[in-house]
C-alpha cells in the first residue's frame, strides 16, 4: 500500500513565497484526530477503530516529511484512514450482515434514536466497500466529492454514484 500517491492532493493554488513548512506532527495529529476517529468508528466500529487509528497516524508519520507543504492534510489523512478501514474489513472478511433482520428488530417498535442509529451503523457496515467509503467520507468526514473520488481512486461521477447508491440502501434499511 503506497501512501505517497495521495500526496498530490492539493488544498488549492500553491502559495507563492510563503515560508510555511509543515506543522509539527503533533499539531497535525491534534487538528485531525477527531475527524479521523469519527470516520473510523463509523466505518469499522469502535473495537477495530483503535488499531486503524494507530496504523493511520503511524503511516502518516512515516510519509510526513515528504509531503508538499501545500497538501490538503485533512483529505490526505482521511485517505490513509479510508485504506486502513478497507484493510480492516478485508481482514475480518465480509461480515454477512442481515441488514433486514437488524432493521426489523430495532426499528419496528418505533425505535429510540439510539436503536435507530445502531440500525443505521449496522447497515453502513454492510454496504459494499466503495459505497460505505463514499457515504462515510461525505457525511461523517464532510469531504467534498472531488476528494472522495481521490481517496477511493475513482472518477468524481463514480463517487457520486456510489454515494447515491449507498444512501438509497441506508434509507431502505432504516425505514424497513
Amino acid at each position: 500500500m503506497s501512501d505517497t500517491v495521495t500526496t498530490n492532493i492539493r488544498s488549492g493554488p500553491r502559495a507563492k513565497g510563503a515560508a510555511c513548512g509543515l506543522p509539527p506532527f503533533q499539531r497535525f495529529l491534534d487538528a485531525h484526530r477527531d475527524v479521523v476517529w469519527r470516520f473510523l468508528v463509523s466505518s469499522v466500529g469502535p473495537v477495530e477503530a483503535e488499531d486503524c487509528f494507530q496504523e493511520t497516524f503511524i503511516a502518516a508519520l512515516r510519509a510526513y516529511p515528504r509531503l508538499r507543504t501545500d497538501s490538503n492534510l485533512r483529505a490526505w489523512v482521511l485517505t490513509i484512514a479510508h485504506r486502513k478501514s478497507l484493510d480492516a474489513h478485508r481482514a475480518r472478511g465480509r461480515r454477512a450482515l442481515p441488514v433486514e433482520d437488524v432493521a426489523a428488530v430495532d426499528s419496528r417498535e418505533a425505535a429510540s434514536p439510539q436503536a435507530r442509529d445502531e440500525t443505521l451503523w449496522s447497515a453502513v457496515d454492510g454496504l459494499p466497500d466503495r459505497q460505505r467509503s463514499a457515504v462515510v467520507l461525505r457525511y461523517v468526514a464532510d469531504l467534498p466529492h472531488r476528494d472522495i473520488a481521490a481517496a477511493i481512486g475513482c472518477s468524481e461521477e463514480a463517487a457520486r454514484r456510489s454515494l447515491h447508491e449507498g444512501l438509497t440502501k441506508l434509507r431502505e434499511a432504516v425505514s424497513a
Partner: protein
Amino acid sequence: MSANSSGDLSVVEEALRRGADDGNAAAAAARVSARISAEGLADVTYAPVDSPFGTLLAATTSQGLVRLAFPEEDVDAVLEGLARRISPRIVESAAPLEPMRRELDEYFSGARREFEMPLDWTLISPFGQRVLRITWDIPYGGVLTYAEVASDAGSPRGSRAAGNALGSNPIPIVIPCHRVLRTGGALGGYGGGLERKRWLLELEGALSKRLPG
C-alpha cells in the same frame, strides 16, 4: 414503506453527519503519540516539565536534550522552530523526557550539581558551540565574565558576540549561560530574565562570592 420520501433521506443524512463517535479520540491520539515516540519513529519528542519558574517545555532527539523553553515562550513557535530546523516528525510524550525531568528536579531542589543527561547541540551555530562548550565547563558555583568566555572561545574582542551566543542558548539552565557575568560582577543579561539568573546563581551559591552585598 415510505422509502422514497425525502424526509427519510434527511433523517439518514442527519444521523450520518452526527457520526458514530464515543468521544475517545483524544485518548487514542495520546496512545499514538506515546507509541510513535517509544518505537523511535519521532525525530523530536517534547513534554512539559515543572520548575520553580513555571512549566518549561523540554524537547529531545535521539541524541539528547535539544531545547528547553521558558514558560513565556510561545509553544507553537518553539515547535515550529524545531520542525523547521530538525524535522516535522515531532510528538508529545513524557516517557523519553523522564530522566531529564528528574535531573532538573534534583537540580532545582539543590540536590544535583552536574547534569548527566546527553545533549544535542545541533541547534547551535559553530561559534555558539565554541562559546557554550566553554560555558558548559564552568563548574557549579563558579562564574566567568563575558570577556573570559570570548577569549577562551578564541575571539578575545568578541564579548558582544559571545553575549549574543549565550543569549540564544537553546538549552538554558542545563548549559549554564547564567554563570557568565559582566566584568566587575554585574549580572549582564539573561534570556529568561535577570530575576531567574539571580535565582539560579543564588541556588548555586555563586552570587555571594562575586557579588558581596
